[in-house]
């Protein structure tokens, strides 16, 4: 049994969640990573993806769109630009996001921006695939 630690999920609008949890899987921009109690202090940006929170009551899955995660000795703080519980996501919203990203790819003028837009598109498609299951 994992030791519990403090976890906070914050969006620009409000503090969404502040609770004691066992384990959190964070969609870091360099890859998913799992945070347990006593994780080394880390700061990571996030890609659009699914945040998995394991609590004594069960597992919560939350879709986050960009932001960053801050692991300190005191706990984990996730600053998400947007956070929606997976159950509340409708496919249309995500499809809209994907469409936006596709347009960004088409509109991008210099290669650098195009690469960034493509990366985002791929990440969104990945999320879509996860959720479709």
């Amino acid at each position, binding site marked *: 049994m994992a030791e519990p630690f403090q976890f*906070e999920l*914050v*969006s*620009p*609008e*409000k*503090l969404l969640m502040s609770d004691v949890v066992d384990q959190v899987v964070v969609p*870091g*921009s*360099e890859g998913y990573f799992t945070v347990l109690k006593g994780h*080394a*202090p*880390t*700061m*990571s*940006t996030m890609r659009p993806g699914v945040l998995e929170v394991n609590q004594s009551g069960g597992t919560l899955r939350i879709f986050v769109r960009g932001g*960053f995660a*801050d692991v*300190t000795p005191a706990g984990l*703080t996730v*600053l998400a*630009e*947007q956070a929606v519980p997976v159950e509340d996501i409708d496919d249309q919203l995500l499809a809209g996001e994907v469409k936006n990203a596709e347009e960004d790819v088409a509109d991008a003028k210099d290669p650098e921006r195009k690469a960034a837009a493509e990366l985002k598109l791929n990440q969104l498609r990945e999320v879509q695939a996860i959720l479709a299951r």
Partner: protein
Amino acid sequence: MPSLKTLRNRIASVKATQKITKAMQMVAASKLRRAQVAAEAARPYAVRMGAVLSNLASTLGGADGAPALLAGTGKDQVHLLLVCTADRGLCGAFNSSIARLARDHAQRLMADGKEVKILCVGKKGYDILRRLFPRQILDVFELRSIKQIGFVNADEIGQRVLSLYADGQFDVCTLFFAEFKSVITQVPTARRLIPAEVGGEAAAAGGAGYEYEPGEEAILADLLPRNVSVQIFRALLENVASEQGAKMSAMDNATRNAGEMIRRYTLQYNRSRQAQITKELIEIISGAEAL
């Protein structure tokens, strides 16, 4: 001396006005509550963002590779003023005090030979500033149709500012808004947005032993543009709360003034009514005596 009928009409119309101001005051009070809750809810994000940012900046501080959003362009020639006001009037000195602060700032800069550009958020500030600086205003954002300001609205403005900055359109950006202190005090405030203002040494201690993923610079590059939007978002929320506070006290004053006016008119009305009765009586009595 106005006739009795005119006085009656006047009292009725002031009463109607009083009802309106009273209603507006109550609406403002309930909106203020909501705005305060929203502003408070947004605080944790901004505070944490600030902490993380100053952490990063202190480790990277002074390095040559620091991003332009933190270090500035190295020049101080073109200033962008982002002036946030309300879209509606009838809220006391709220709009004009922000506009006045921005105007003084702009005139000081222009006297120093600097170039000034203005971006307005909110219609009222635009109305005031466009008379003074018709050529300096780049654009105006209206938030009138938006019921509850969300982060996306602030982000839209933030993106605009960033794209202007990326195009080299300005060197320094200052944000003007009214800070909400309490229901009766709102302080017009200027805050430097670009280059980012970082909270100095206080945070330096926590920076050691951190692992960064991807590198510190990549995170900082991701964080700084977001910080701009967050700062704007915070200013907008403070502004909404301040506007409602200002409106509430302005409408409270108006209601009280209307009450005072009604009292005076009623007194005058009663006096002239009595005077008329007395006059009629005198006429009847003196008529009877003459017979």
